[in-house]
């Protein structure tokens, strides 16, 4: 598909931000997203081509305004749920649970 990800030759993106030179994970969530993605691939939950295809299907505005690892997180959610490894219900429930726990600690 000629998706938003297919950006070779597109114009108007402006100068390369060379100062954005980090190669390390900027936050723990990035590292975990990276590792969980690799391990899900290793576990055969999905393949790398499905993973790339999933990212290409991000809403274009989201694709352009989120970071590389957010794309990985999107495709992880998309594939694990669409393939029935996780259900949307248990995923949302777990997020709600963790949100409450975090709010409880903050209080």
């Amino acid at each position: 598909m000629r998706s938003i990800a297919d950006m070779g030759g597109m114009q108007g993106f402006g100068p390369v931000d060379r100062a954005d030179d980090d190669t390390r994970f900027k936050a723990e969530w990035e590292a975990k997203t990276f590792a969980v993605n690799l391990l899900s691939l290793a576990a055969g939950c999905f393949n790398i081509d499905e993973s790339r295809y999933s990212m290409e299907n991000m809403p274009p505005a989201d694709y352009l305004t989120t970071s590389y690892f957010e794309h990985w997180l999107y495709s992880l959610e998309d594939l694990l749920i669409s393939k029935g490894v996780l259900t949307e219900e248990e995923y949302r429930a777990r997020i709600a649970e963790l949100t409450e726990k975090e709010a409880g600690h903050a209080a």
Partner: protein
Amino acid sequence: MSHDDHTMPPSTLALRIKAIETLMVEKGKIDPGAVTEIVDIFQNKLGPRIGAGVVARAWSDPAFKARLLEDGTQALKDMGVSGLQGEAMIILENTPQVHNVIVCTLCSCYPWTVLGLPPTWYKSAPYRSRIVIEPRSVLAEFGLDISNDREVRVFDSNAEIRYMVLPERPAGTEGWSEDRLAALVTRDSMIGTGVPLAASAI
């Protein structure tokens, strides 16, 4: 999953991945120790010093350089360099006639085995979009001025073939040890957006 309502605030990124991780661990799909191990390897063990060592050896050993250019995958394997996102490697030699540079316009594929994880700019829309159509303009932003009597070759990593640039050896380094040579090799010189440090730099 419905992504119609996909406007989650940034603070939930950590919660989303934690939710996935904990569920996957509970379902026996991933080993939590493996998560830590992977992060350690990519933060601390893989990185451009590996590629720099390859370049230094190629500069020092003409027979190795010939093997490296002929069959990058095997020559690297012989050095103990192999694996994920480096299963099929091609080494691109810079010459007085040719300057090479790598990209993945479609996503951000990068030669992890020799360079580790890519810098953020490599994965950015400005780099991915512009390097194929106006490479000289992008390279000029990196401080590289490529004259018109040289050809700029852009390798788009759209399949599982991975590339690394073998930059030209700096002048005045005759007789240097491989370790000393490796110290001149910058990460950007192996992507093609830079050149090695001058001999006088170290």
